[in-house]
């Protein structure tokens, strides 16, 4: 359905419910939708499951959301960083659940959610604690682990430019998880540096087509 170009980040995050699974883009701070997360903090949704590569950096963005106690569970590949003190504190205090997922499984499981794949067999994590209890299967003589999709109720992503239809382009390695998360969530909300007129982005270079984008806000 047609994208909504929002005037404010508050409008962009309106209606996110308590208990939602929220996919949050970014790899470290690159591509992190900080203004949308700030708006989500103001909006007030709590008891969230957040899926993001990291578990917050410093005191802003995802770290600020965590600090407010709004997140029940983090699903990520790499929570522990030099500046992940907010998450570290919550985790050590037993105030947050953590599911560590290998980074490639995190990406591929979200792709599966977006692509209508019910489950897939991959080799990542075979024989490691992160595959414990998961179903396995021998394919071509190699052990594979069965992985299921990760779907989001909402995705918050950062992109570079949107056109007024909602087509998105990204910038350098800030692209990272944004395009995958956009496909995997029921509602995808993008913050961008600029909204341009429809027809000014080259159709050959669109990374996220408008079909995946529900709301856009320039920040």
């Amino acid at each position, binding site marked *: *359905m047609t994208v909504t170009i929002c005037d404010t980040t508050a409008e962009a995050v309106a209606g996110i419910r308590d208990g939602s699974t929220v996919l949050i883009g970014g790899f470290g701070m690159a591509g992190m939708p900080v203004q949308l997360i700030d708006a989500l903090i103001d909006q007030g949704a709590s008891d969230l499951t957040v899926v993001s590569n990291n578990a917050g950096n410093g005191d802003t963005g995802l770290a600020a959301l965590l600090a407010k106690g709004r997140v029940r569970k983090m699903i990520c590949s790499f929570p522990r960083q030099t500046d992940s003190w907010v998450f570290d504190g919550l985790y050590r205090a037993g105030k947050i659940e953590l599911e560590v997922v290998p980074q490639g499984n995190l990406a591929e499981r979200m*792709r599966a959610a977006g*692509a*209508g794949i019910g489950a897939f067999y991959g080799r990542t994590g075979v024989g490691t604690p992160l595959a414990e209890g998961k179903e396995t299967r021998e394919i071509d003589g190699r052990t594979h682990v069965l992985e299921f999709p990760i779907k989001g109720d909402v995705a918050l992503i950062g992109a570079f430019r949107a056109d007024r239809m909602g087509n998105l382009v990204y910038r350098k390695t800030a692209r990272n998880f944004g395009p995958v998360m956009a*496909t995997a969530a029921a509602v995808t909300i993008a913050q961008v540096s600029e909204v341009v007129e429809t027809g000014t982005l080259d*159709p050959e270079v*669109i990374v996220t*087509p*408008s079909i995946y984008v529900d709301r856009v806000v320039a920040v």
Partner: protein
Amino acid sequence: MSLDKHEMAALVARDIAPGSYVNLGIGQPTLVADHLPAGAGIVLHTENGMLNMGPAAVGDQIDPDLTNAGKIPVTELPGSAYFHHADSFAMMRGGHLDVCVMGAFQVSANGDLANWHTGDPDAIPAVGGAMDLAVGAKSVYVMMTLFTKRGEPKLVPECTYPLTGLKCVDRVYTDQATFLITDAGVIVRDTFGITFEELSDRLDVPLLRP
């Protein structure tokens, strides 16, 4: 009066909500594009890798690198986007298209679709993207004549032709009537030059009034 194919296409077009993302199958469903209201922001998908496809190309617009799923040269509209086949089918299979419109040999009372193979042992089977659309689109609309040239109904208790998808069809637009396939049964929404009783008489499928 029964509808001709252009009237059927217009009827389908009228039921597509503004802002929908739509895939139109090869053949008659392509005609729906001519009847979509301008300015409604309806975006056409073609499975060979494009969103916001424009009308058929004419004259100098013809570009062999820009075709639709039927290999007909087409044009692009402002805001179109290209992507590769795996991305295109991920879009279809992942449930992102609002509507697809396909032709059919048969549709069953519970929404099974048969539109890829007549079952004739001499026929060369060819399925294309029909099975992906059948399971992937949020709403599957079929557009067909209600009866074959030999007068056999194409809305049937059970398909006798090889299936394309199970319980996937939501609506059937025909020259004689429009049918809604629901959990409660097949509802006749509109009739064209035929009465509900005549329809009930000619079809082996229990029909419900709207």
